């Protein structure tokens, strides 16, 4: 088996060389538009020409991405899309959301249908590797683990109690694979009931078709908060896996991947520096006035050329924070105390407080 990885730039160059040989004029046209200089990636050029970012989300997951009654999207995953749009256009509204189910998300990203996948996707080796799904991952925006939810009435306390019982799971997820692995390790026989979408999975669980449903713990908590009687369901203490939920782009465009990576880091760094949506204007003014605060001046784009290096506007940081706030604000608003999910920050605290949220230095 021979797998060859060619970067998009090489492919584009090859296509340009081959173009005169081909007959169809519109092929020529499409190849000609692939040229680009400096840090401008083909993907970013496409997005800027289009005037909006196309973001792949789940769309039915409270806390992460869901549609309100007025048709607007909100959630932690959605805020990452908004931050990216703010960085590119200065306007968090310039996003078009695509609802993707777990089975179609990677094909949608690989074929260029969506620019950015912000859909509670677990970073794994095979998804990252060029010989696997070939994705490029930003830093995780939510560290999660796979859990199991059962109705209190079932009397199930541990994974062992699930022996021989039907378990609902969304197909095409890491969850499905982890479930198989954990149950195999413990030699617990079970019946997996697989559904294409989360909606169907939870509908079957609520109708009593399965005695347990398994997914990321945050997702289970989010779904439980929307049940008619949330207190009638418990999350088992077992954590079956590590699930770092991470925004992803395609491997083939490192420039675009970097822009996404540092947009996410911006959210982390801003929280660490105590910069929030409320004080961003004041902080910018402070940085402008005080030439000695080099770190702050660089971070906010008052001096240096971070923006240019990434192919983003110089003031991309103030635009992002002004639009969606820092990571802490996003967390609280969507899944933390300010939301119906009321999740604890847990390992998603800043590194200085013993958590895993850590931005490499902006310099």
């Amino acid at each position, binding site marked *: *088996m*021979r*797998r*060859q*990885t*060619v*970067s*998009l730039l090489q*492919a584009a160059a*090859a*296509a340009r060389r081959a173009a005169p040989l*081909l*007959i*169809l004029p519109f*092929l020529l046209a499409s190849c000609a538009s692939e040229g680009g200089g400096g840090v401008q990636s083909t993907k970013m050029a496409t997005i800027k020409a289009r005037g909006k970012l196309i973001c792949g989300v789940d769309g039915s997951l409270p806390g992460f991405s869901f549609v309100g009654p007025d048709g607007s999207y909100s959630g932690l995953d959605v805020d990452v899309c908004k931050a990216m749009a703010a960085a590119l256009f200065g306007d968090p509204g310039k996003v078009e959301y695509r609802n993707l189910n*777990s*089975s179609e998300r*990677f*094909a949608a990203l*690989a*074929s260029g249908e969506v620019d950015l996948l912000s859909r509670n996707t677990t970073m794994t080796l095979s998804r990252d590797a*060029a*010989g*696997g*799904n*070939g994705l490029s991952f930003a830093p995780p925006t939510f560290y999660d683990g796979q859990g199991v939810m059962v109705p209190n009435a079932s009397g199930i306390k541990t994974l062992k109690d699930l*022996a*021989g*019982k*039907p378990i609902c799971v969304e*197909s*095409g*997820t890491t969850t*499905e*694979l982890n*479930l*198989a*692995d954990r*149950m*195999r390790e413990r030699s617990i026989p*079970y*019946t*997996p*009931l*697989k*559904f*294409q979408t989360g909606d*169907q999975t939870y*509908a*079957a669980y609520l*109708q*009593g*078709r399965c005695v347990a449903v398994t997914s990321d713990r945050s997702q289970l908590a989010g779904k439980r908060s929307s049940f008619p009687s949330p207190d009638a369901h418990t999350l088992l203490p077992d954590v079956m896996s590590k699930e770092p939920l991470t925004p992803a782009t*395609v*491997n*083939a465009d490192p420039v675009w991947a970097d822009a996404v990576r540092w947009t996410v880091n911006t959210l982390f760094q801003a929280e660490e520096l105590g910069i929030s949506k409320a004080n961003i204007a004041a902080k910018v003014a402070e940085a402008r006035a005080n030439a000695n605060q080099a770190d702050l001046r660089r971070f906010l784009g008052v001096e240096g050329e971070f923006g240019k290096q990434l192919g983003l506007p110089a003031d991309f940081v103030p635009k992002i924070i002004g639009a969606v706030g820092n990571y802490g604000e996003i967390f609280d608003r969507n899944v933390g105390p300010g939301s119906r999910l009321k999740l604890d920050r847990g390992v998603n605290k800043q590194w200085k407080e013993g958590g895993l949220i850590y931005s490499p230095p902006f310099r």
Partner: protein
Amino acid sequence: MGVTRSSLPRSVLGAGAPVPWWRNRRVIPWLVQGAVGLTVLVLVAFLLSNLIRNLTAAGLLLSWGWLSQPAGFDIAETILPFQASDPYWRGLLAGLVNTLRVVVTGLLGATLLGTLLGMASFSGNVLLRNLTRVYVEVVRNIPLLLQLVFWYFVVFLSLPNGTAAIQLPGVVLAKSGLYIAGFAEGLRWMGPHLVNGVWQAPLRWSVEFGALLTGLIAYSSAFIAEVVRGGIAAVPKGQWEAASSLGLSWIQTLRQVVLPQALRVIVPGLNTQYISLAKNSSLAVAVGFSDLYSVAETTLNQTGRAVEVVLVLLGTYLALDLFISLLMNGLNRLVQIRER
């Protein structure tokens, strides 16, 4: 209608003059074919070159090695034993066996129900006749997918569970499935029984399978009923009259005189319906039954191999359809009247 509109007979006017090559009867067809063929060829070459370029860029060039990698996921209800450590090809095969299971059972059920309904539409009983019509008109005009999710989420998932399940001697119908008594290992007769709150029995149909089968049978039988009705209607009225004047009852007439003749018309129609049933079985994915399509979709997701998976799917369904067509053609030859 345009039949009366006529134009000057140009061919008469032009007779005798030498025909230029572009109006030559023998050249034009080849020109047309050449143009169409070239267009198709260029289009296919264009698409293929894109495919290869894009796949190379994504590092996903056609390869089949992944088929022998362990799948890593489980499948709930398989005839062919399958576990997570088995390779992908075995998972796909288990999916195919599940598809065949639905298709074969569905074909039998739909044929039986459809034939009964088709016959009932000739009954002397007005109520029965009209009820048959109503059934056919209702079922045919509602999308199959809607019917499937209705059967599954509304009907089957409202069944009682555990000890409250519907229990008949040797048979139990619960939310998790239909359990039928049978011989367990060692030729020991065993009825449905509860183990640890879960029903167990030698024979088991899950509700996913049940909902899919019910939906497919209900939908296809309405179409088959129409085929059977058309076939019976094609038998001359005189045949009925002759048979009943011989003293045959209605059911005897139908079975011994009319149906054998109607089969000639019915069998080709059935072929179409059987093929649609086979293809419609791929909607299993909507009710959580692991058929070939459902396993293929999971496989695509875990491997990212879109092209290979689509090729496997298309090839298998084409082969399945071809097989059904061959069978039905054989049957067709059998039922044709061998005159003289």
